[in-house]
């Protein structure tokens, strides 16, 4: 599903050159639930951003769903992200000025779907994460766990094949974290969604199919 070949990422400033990812190659199969672990600054999020087409590698090749995305234009990349990928972030990244339903509808705004269709899909996604009673709430009126569930609903509303989760339980207590993890496991099991999750939490990582460890930008496990 995702094939990374010899990926390198170098951040350059006038005086300093930092190697964030150092020649990582990784194959992630369709329907796999993979977790990435490593100390802070080891390149986990950078790798996830590269997989999510939010960042470009300095070297190497990425194929997603058999498509070489290196020659995609900005427009095509945006469309690809919209249709194939779903994102979950540690800090949720909800728009506080929009109600829960509107937040979940966001990815559908960049597709040709009617308002009615968007509402139906967003409501269904919120039902899946158990938040059908919070449609009209604003994110600030929800707990951390509820906000993350809204973010999951937003990630799955467009029915993507891949979900990229950057420390989805990082801001939550263990009970809430387990709840979120259960939702992701169910998504992977029931919908066959490929999930790549960055985490610091060993226990969460052990619930996934495969664990990849990074250290100083290189894969160590």
């Amino acid at each position, binding site marked *: 599903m995702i094939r990374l070949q010899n990926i390198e990422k170098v951040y350059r400033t006038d005086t300093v050159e930092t190697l964030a990812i150092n020649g990582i190659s990784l194959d992630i199969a369709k329907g796999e639930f993979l977790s990435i672990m490593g100390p802070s600054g080891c390149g986990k999020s950078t790798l996830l951003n590269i997989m999510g087409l939010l960042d470009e590698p300095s070297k190497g090749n990425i194929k997603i769903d058999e498509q070489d995305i290196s020659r995609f234009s900005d427009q095509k990349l945006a469309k690809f992200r919209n249709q194939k990928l779903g*994102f979950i972030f540690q*800090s949720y990244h909800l728009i506080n000025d929009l109600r829960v339903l509107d937040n979940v509808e*966001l990815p559908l705004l960049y597709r040709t779907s009617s308002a009615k269709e968007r509402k139906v899909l967003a409501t269904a996604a919120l039902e899946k994460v158990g938040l059908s009673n919070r449609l009209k709430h604003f994110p600030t009126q929800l707990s951390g766990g509820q906000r993350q569930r809204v973010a999951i609903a*937003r990630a799955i509303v467009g029915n993507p094949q891949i979900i990229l989760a950057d420390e989805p339980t990082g801001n939550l207590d263990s009970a809430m974290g387990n709840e979120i993890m259960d939702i992701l496991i169910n998504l992977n099991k029931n919908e066959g969604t490929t999930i790549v999750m960055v985490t610091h939490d060993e226990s969460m990582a052990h619930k996934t199919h495969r664990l990849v460890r990074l250290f100083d930008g290189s894969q160590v496990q």
Partner: protein
Amino acid sequence: MFKHLFKLIWNKRRQNFLFLSEILVSFLVIFAVFSFLTYYYQNYSKPLGFDYKRVWCITYNNGELTKNNDSLKIFYDNLQKALKSMPQIEEVAYSGANYPYSDSFSSTGLTQNGKKFNYIANYTVGIDYKKVWNVPLLEGRWFLPEDVVSNNKNIVINETLKKQLFGNAQATGKLIGNYDEKEKLKVIGVMQDIKASGDFLPAGSAIFNPIDTAFHKYTHNILIKVREGADATFESQLYKFMANTVKNAVEIKHLDEMRNSKNKQTIIPMVIFIIIASFLIINVALGLFGVLWYNINKRKGEIGLRRAIGASGRSVSYQLVMEAIILATISLLVGCFFAGQFPLLSVFNIPASVYIIAMLLSVAFIYLLVLFCSLYPGKQAANIHPAVALHEE
């Protein structure tokens, strides 16, 4: 997407209040500027209606002249003949103080079918007044010497007054009441409008009365049309002649200079107003630019998120520009509500078309201003790297 943007703007109405107020105030100022400009342009584009070139006005003090009306009439008839006999002079006419481009204004009222018409410019003029200005008559005739002694009080009205009183019907021969309807005035002719207060102000309604014997004691102004080549030497001779004749202070004014001065009275305040408004607009533009720039920096996380879930750089830029345009539209709707009262209530008695054109121009100006101020921040937003934006948040 529009509905989504409306929701976003509505939910952030408190944060957007400053932006909305700024646009509203700018619109109202621009509306005032464009109202003036449209009004002046509409007046400027209308014909002047008379020929002021080579017209001089001799103003004198007649205090030393005889007080006897009949003797005065003979004196003035002789003076007119003497002036007209000068080879450099084409036409001579006496006039009240409110001749074109003078700072005097005399107004009266009329009554027609019980309806009062006020603020009508009231000119008292000599028989040859029309010849001096070379003004065409649209209907009827100009004054003849016998009109001065006629039983009816004969008047000539201008085109604007004719339209107010009679619409498209003929005015000649009709009787109208004076301001208190105690006297009937007979219209003997309709003269083309003349813009007596300058190129930028309307002709307004006017009536012309012939100078009769009783008025001579108030006559202080002689309008003369000189021939080509009448120079300073002639002006000096004329001055000496008049000073010797009236035995008092004399002043000779050139109507082309008076016209320039009159036009400046309109142009200078307008230029000052435009300069002040321009400074305001520059400040508003910088303010808008700053607010949009600040919003973009504040919304980096949202921009990063939108990029992640499928927005291209162009659609992020489009969204931010559209948000600014929608906010401007809300302000403009409120602004148009207030501005719309001006034509509805005929404020300052200015034609509704002036306000409507000014509204349309102001709306277009504000949209261009907002577009101009939002394009660059929008473009910068499009260039925000999604990974960096999401990380910063």
